[in-house]
């Protein structure tokens, strides 16, 4: 028999989950210009690589924008470029031979999450921060983002009031523009007492955000079914992650086992592997996945037997949803 104190390294704790979702929220709240390096050290394209090396070493930096003249941005030089140069023992070369001219820029008023997305997509070490006139106002690195987020978290713990303000501000943001809110919940296996809480919270959040009743209901039902499946059918529980955007709601649930042997069969109405004791609690009709598919606009269920299961669903907030609401009333 497995001992209950068995280490569960892959599943994050509630506290960690809370911190993670807080960090994600902050990534939407904090703007690039709040954490960027203003007035970064810049170099000129005709300087020698040797000088660049010296400046990098003295100033302890790992990259610098290259300006031709006063403010004409022509490239960026990073440690990687310097290493290439060193390998060629070519320190007398001028910077413009080694600099990178492909520039990844980010708007100074964007939330950090936009910068994070660019880092993930491009693999660049730093982004040039520009203002509305495409003029460089600073640079931002992954390190800047980490420091900024950590500072904000620390500040958070001290300033309850500020946190409240932030939260309400965040909701306004979502209602009004392109940014999104991410909610994340860690679901415990076998927890029938608090089970369903995540779905309730999500549904409530949607109603508060002004989602139409019908949408909130469809989301609630779909997430509840997914949540109960994590509670009932997994070995270690799992995670629900919800992203609320102005035009759609995306829900991602995943767990690390036991997986589903035959996904097609699992999707059939009435198919269930639930035990008798679970049925006594009101589950195991074999209708959960069917209900989910009826409530959502897109659904993808993937599973590897012995590994885990991932369910991704999406609900659109556009005309289609309005249509079904009309049918309903």
């Amino acid at each position, binding site marked *: 028999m497995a001992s209950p104190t068995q280490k569960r390294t892959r599943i994050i704790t509630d506290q960690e989950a809370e911190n993670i979702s807080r960090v994600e929220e902050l990534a939407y709240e904090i703007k690039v210009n709040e954490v960027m390096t203003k007035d970064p050290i810049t170099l000129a394209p005709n300087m020698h690589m040797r000088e660049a090396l010296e400046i990098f070493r003295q100033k302890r930096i790992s990259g610098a924008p290259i300006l031709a003249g006063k403010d004409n941005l022509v490239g960026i030089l990073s440690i990687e470029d310097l290493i290439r140069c060193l390998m060629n023992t070519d320190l007398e070369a001028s910077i413009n031979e080694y600099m990178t001219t492909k520039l990844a820029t980010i708007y100074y008023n964007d939330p950090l999450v936009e910068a994070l997305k660019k880092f993930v997509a491009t693999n660049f070490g730093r982004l040039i921060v520009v203002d509305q006139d495409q003029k460089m106002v600073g640079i931002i690195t992954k390190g800047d983002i980490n420091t900024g987020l950590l500072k904000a978290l620390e500040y958070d713990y001290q300033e309850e009031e500020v946190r409240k303000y932030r939260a309400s501000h965040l909701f306004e943001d979502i209602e009004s523009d392109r940014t999104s809110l991410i909610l994340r919940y860690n679901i415990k296996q076998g927890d*029938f007492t608090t089970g*369903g809480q995540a779905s309730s919270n999500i549904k409530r959040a949607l109603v508060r955000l002004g989602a139409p*009743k019908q949408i909130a*209901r469809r989301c609630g039902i779909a997430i509840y079914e997914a949540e109960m499946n994590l509670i009932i059918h997994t070995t270690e529980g799992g995670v629900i992650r919800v992203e609320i955007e102005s035009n759609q709601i995306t829900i991602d649930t995943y767990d690390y086992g036991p997986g589903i042997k035959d996904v097609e069969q699992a999707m059939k109405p009435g198919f269930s592997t639930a035990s008798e004791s679970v049925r006594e609690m*009101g*589950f*195991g*009709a074999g*209708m959960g996945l069917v209900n989910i598919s009826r409530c959502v606009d897109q659904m993808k269920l993937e599973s590897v037997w012995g590994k885990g299961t991932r369910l991704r669903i999406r609900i659109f907030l556009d005309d289609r949803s309005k249509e079904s609401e009309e049918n309903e009333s």
Partner: protein
Amino acid sequence: MILNELIEIVDGYLHNEKIDGSIQILGGCGADLMSDVLASIEPGAVLLTGLCNPQVVRTAVMADVAAIVLVRGKIPPPQTIDLALEEDIPLISSPFGMFELCGRLHKAGLPSLEKPVEGEQDCGC
């Protein structure tokens, strides 16, 4: 039908202290498996069920159920009552069984809010 009328018809005991007795109950639905409830129930219904664990209340919240009636005089555990209070969902215990309850409410004019479940109904057994 309003909540107070319903409580009278089912000879029910209301577990919530503060509840607006004038809320409208649009219809009814009876089921003991939560996914069956979620598959078929329409908003604003009273849910008649033989289960009394907290998940009944969760399910009711998800499906916009207007009130819950526990059949056969079942007294729910404290967690269920607490959750019903928290979610502000009327939770009622009735001494009658499921069939009797459906009959009484239907006779009093309460329509069914169990919408037919479309699609293939291969029950898999």
